[in-house]
């Protein structure tokens, strides 16, 4: 029994809303965007077929307002809601609210989201499905005695993690028994204030893990397949910034093993939809279950480039109650794909967000290059939301070609007006360690002890930049001179310029 979907409301913004609107267009489905006041001119509003204002500015006033979104869906006649990632994507209450309102939530059933969203429950289920997990407790260890005996059993160093966690919050590395008590209470309190849930648990700390994840798809007919892995080890603030597929350390046997593990867990959980099973991989290539993301990932395009599948269109199929378009044996992986996330962040200042006006913006293109962007020339990057401008994804017949094409595309990409992670992407692509595939989640700290310094070293063009400033200034002077000559003015433009220099006020960094 399959349903027809004629219109989808996209409960998101930025590049992922644009991505979903494009998939709607490809599928012949009408897309309806929603927007906050500062997003009226945003790309997702312009690219969608329809657009409805939510009224308000912050995420809490707009993209997180379940009532407004449901109401808009009803008003515009959408049958389904795509939540993208972030915002309401992993909110099981919202998924349930959609169902209660006769709307299709494009994602797993609320019960599955709730189950896998709880790290302790997800870990228990992974164990049940036979997945290797990081040695540790699967219970709440808020009592110091329990914690002590757990940690003793696991062996130091250990990691305290929040049950409801994410983004490194409520997480502490403990190297010896002395530090345990203090770490336990600060982690619990941090988890309490960040997630409203003080529960924490203890795991073996794996020193230099790789972050490797497996893309899964499950339909309502019990079919679950995996599309191979993505390596997402390069992270800042525990958040991914560069991803690729395949991983240099994953061979066919390991891919099959990880894939089967991911599928086993998904089947155990009754998974329906697109999702990702995340693993940590230690220095001996042993992998451990980490968590499940019950949604489309930011980095899904690298899997699309390698498999040729359109994951958002697969989500649409699944939501309509249809079977997956492919079986496991049909999955034909080809070549190598890399994604660099282009954030409005200054990597040389600790990846600090930079908002502002895109005074010039020009995307790269050509063979093997895809840009999933949420911005257009002349847009402003607002302060209220995630600073992701675009994702630059390249494909090459092998990893070397993919790296070369990424370097070319990063070189062509013009973003003027704000700092971005483009120079950082260049630095990584040019580094011997990335090229030889020596990755871990500590990649940035390990490779660049002083990132600002490394970035400025790659910056051999300061002389050229200085020369350009001199030339542009000189050109301006010549033009002023020509104008003043034409006007037969007595005033010498060099003087004017000198005076202007004297009026110089403050210089901001």
């Amino acid at each position: 029994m399959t349903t027809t979907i004629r219109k989808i409301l996209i409960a998101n913004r930025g590049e992922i809303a644009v991505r979903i609107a494009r998939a709607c267009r490809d599928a012949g489905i009408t897309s309806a965007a929603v927007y906050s006041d500062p997003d009226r001119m945003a790309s997702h509003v312009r690219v969608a077929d329809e657009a409805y204002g939510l009224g308000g500015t912050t995420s809490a006033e707009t993209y997180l307002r379940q009532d407004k979104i449901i109401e808009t869906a009803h008003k515009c006649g959408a049958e389904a809601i795509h939540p993208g990632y972030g915002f309401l994507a992993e909110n099981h209450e919202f998924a349930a609210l959609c169902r209660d309102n006769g709307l299709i939530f494009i994602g797993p059933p609320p019960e599955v989201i709730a189950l896998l969203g709880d790290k302790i429950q997800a870990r228990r289920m992974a164990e049940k499905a036979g997945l290797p997990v990081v040695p540790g407790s699967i219970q709440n260890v808020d009592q110091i005695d329990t914690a002590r005996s757990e940690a003793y059993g696991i062996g130091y160093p250990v990691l305290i993690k929040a049950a409801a966690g994410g983004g490194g919050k409520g997480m502490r590395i403990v190297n010896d028994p002395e530090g345990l008590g203090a770490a336990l209470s600060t982690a619990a309190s941090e988890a309490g204030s960040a997630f409203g849930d003080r529960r924490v648990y203890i795991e073996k700390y794996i020193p230099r893990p790789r972050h490797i994840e497996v893309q899964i798809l499950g339909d309502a007919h019990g079919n679950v397949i995996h599309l191979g892995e993505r390596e997402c080890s390069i992270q800042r603030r525990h958040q991914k910034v560069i991803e690729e597929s395949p991983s240099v350390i994953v061979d066919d046997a390991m891919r099959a093993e990880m894939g089967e593990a991911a599928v086993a867990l998904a089947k155990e959980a009754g998974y329906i939809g697109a999702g990702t099973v995340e693993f940590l991989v230690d220095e001996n290539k042993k992998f451990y279950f980490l968590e499940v993301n019950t949604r489309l990932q930011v980095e899904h395009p690298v899997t699309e480039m390698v498999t040729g599948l359109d994951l958002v269109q697969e989500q649409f199929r699944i939501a309509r109650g249809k079977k997956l378009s492919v079986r496991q044996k049909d999955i034909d992986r080809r070549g190598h794909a890399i994604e660099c996330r282009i954030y409005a962040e200054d990597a040389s200042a600790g990846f600090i967000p930079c908002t502002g006006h895109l005074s010039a913006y020009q995307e790269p293109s050509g063979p093997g290059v895809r840009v999933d962007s949420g911005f257009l020339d002349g847009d402003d990057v607002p302060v209220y939301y995630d600073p992701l401008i675009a994702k630059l994804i390249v494909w090459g017949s092998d990893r070397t070609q993919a790296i070369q094409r990424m370097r070319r595309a990063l070189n062509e990409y013009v973003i003027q007006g704000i700092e971005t992670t483009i120079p950082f992407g260049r630095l990584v692509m040019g580094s011997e360690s990335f090229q030889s595939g020596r990755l871990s989640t500590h990649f940035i700290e390990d490779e660049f002890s002083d990132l600002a310094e490394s970035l400025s070293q790659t910056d051999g063009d300061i002389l050229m930049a200085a020369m350009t400033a001199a030339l542009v200034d000189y050109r301006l002077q010549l033009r002023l001179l020509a104008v003043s000559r034409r006007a037969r003015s007595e005033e010498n433009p060099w003087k004017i310029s000198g005076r202007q220099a004297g009026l110089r006020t403050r210089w901001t960094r």
Partner: protein
Amino acid sequence: MKKVQVSTADRSFAFELWFENGRYFVRGEGGEHVVDLIPLRNNRYSLIIDGRSYETGVEVASDGYVVFTGARSHRFIVEDYEIAQMKRQAGIDDWAREMLLTAPMPGLVLAVNCRPGDRVEKNQPLLVMEAMKMENDIKSPLTGIIRTVAVAPGQNVDKNQTLIEFEPWRNPEKPVPE
């Protein structure tokens, strides 16, 4: 022919420039260059320097130029060379005068980790700001001494609002006094 000095906070370059037969000529570090400079849209320029093709953005700020190369943005002051030398002899330093740390984005100041009179290292975290739902360390742009801290924890600040003023100090040959 004109001689200019182009400077950032910690480097300066001297160039002689002239224009002849539709081409610019620049003499400075790295020798003499022939430059074909063409303005494009959005303050961008196409430059062919001795046959090598470059594209840069140059925005005129109230106090100088911001040059966007592919890799980074650079802020420069461009001055007549003679005037720059006179200023230097008179002990005037535009960059030193302008040693401010300003807010890179609007947000909330969560913590201030320095006090007036502190000697701080380049890249040392001086404040913590919350913006875009993240806590961000705001680091020192230079090695120097703090004159004033213009904000306090709990305060909301606008983009480019002054956070910290440094003592004027600049002499590449000599380190900051302990």
